[in-house]
C-alpha cells in the first residue's frame, strides 16, 4: 500500500524533503514507517527528538496501523506563538 509522508521543520531539512510517497506492507505501523524513513534518509537516523505522530491530521500513537492512502505526519516539538 502507499502512504504519503509529511515532514516538517527540522525533520524536513534533515531529510531534504517534506513530502515523500512510501510503499509499505499492509498493516505497517507508524513506528515501522518511521524506522524505514530513518534507514532511507541518513539525516533522520540521528534524530533523538520526541516526536508526535498524526495520521490524516489526527494525533495517533506509534503503534497505530496505517491504511492505504493515509497521510502520515512526523511532528517535531512544536514552537508556534
Amino acid at each position, binding site marked *: 500500500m502507499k502512504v504519503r509522508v509529511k515532514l516538517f521543520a527540522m525533520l524536513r531539512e534533515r531529510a531534504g524533503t517534506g513530502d515523500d510517497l512510501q510503499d509499505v506492507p499492509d498493516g505497517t505501523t507508524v513506528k515501522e514507517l518511521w524506522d524505514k524513513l530513518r534507514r532511507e534518509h541518513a539525516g533522520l537516523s540521528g534524530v533523538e527528538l*520526541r516526536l508526535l505522530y498524526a495520521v490524516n491530521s489526527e494525533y495517533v500513537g506509534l503503534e497505530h496501523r496505517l491504511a492505504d492512502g493515509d497521510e502520515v505526519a512526523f511532528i517535531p516539538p512544536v514552537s508556534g506563538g
Partner: protein
Amino acid sequence: MYRLTDKSIDVSELLAFVGDPGAGAVATFIGTTRDNNEGRSIISLDYEAYPGMAEQEMTRLGEEAATTWRITRMAIVHRTGNVPIGEASVAIAVSAPHRDDAFKACRYAIDELKKRVPIWKKEIYEGGEIWIGSQTGERFTEAPAVGSRD
C-alpha cells in the same frame, strides 16, 4: 475564525469578527517576534505550519475553551513564512459577556496553541539558525502519550 496567513496580521479584522452586541468584553493576545533569545541576537523568524491540521487544532482549542468558559466568539490567526522583528506572529481575540471568561479563554488558547498546534519557529541570527524546540543537545525520546509532550 481560525487561520494561517503569510501576510501581516490585521488585528482589526479579528476584533470585527469577535464583536457582538451581547459581549461586554474582548480580550486579545498578540505574540510578537523578539530580537533576542537566550543571549542570541535574532535577525528574523521563519514560521512553518502543517496547513489543514494547524487550523483544525486551533479550531479545537476554541471549542474546548467554549465548553469551559462562557465565550461568544474566538479568532486565532497565526502567521507563516518570514516574520521581521517586532511584528505579530500570532493574534487571538475572544469576546465574552464578561471579562473574566474572555481573559481566561484567551490565556488558554495561547497556552494550548504553543503546546500542540503544528507550527514551528526558526530563529535566524548572525551566523546560524535554530529550530526552536529541536535545539541540538536536547535529547528527547518517543512521546509517552498521544497529543502531549509534557
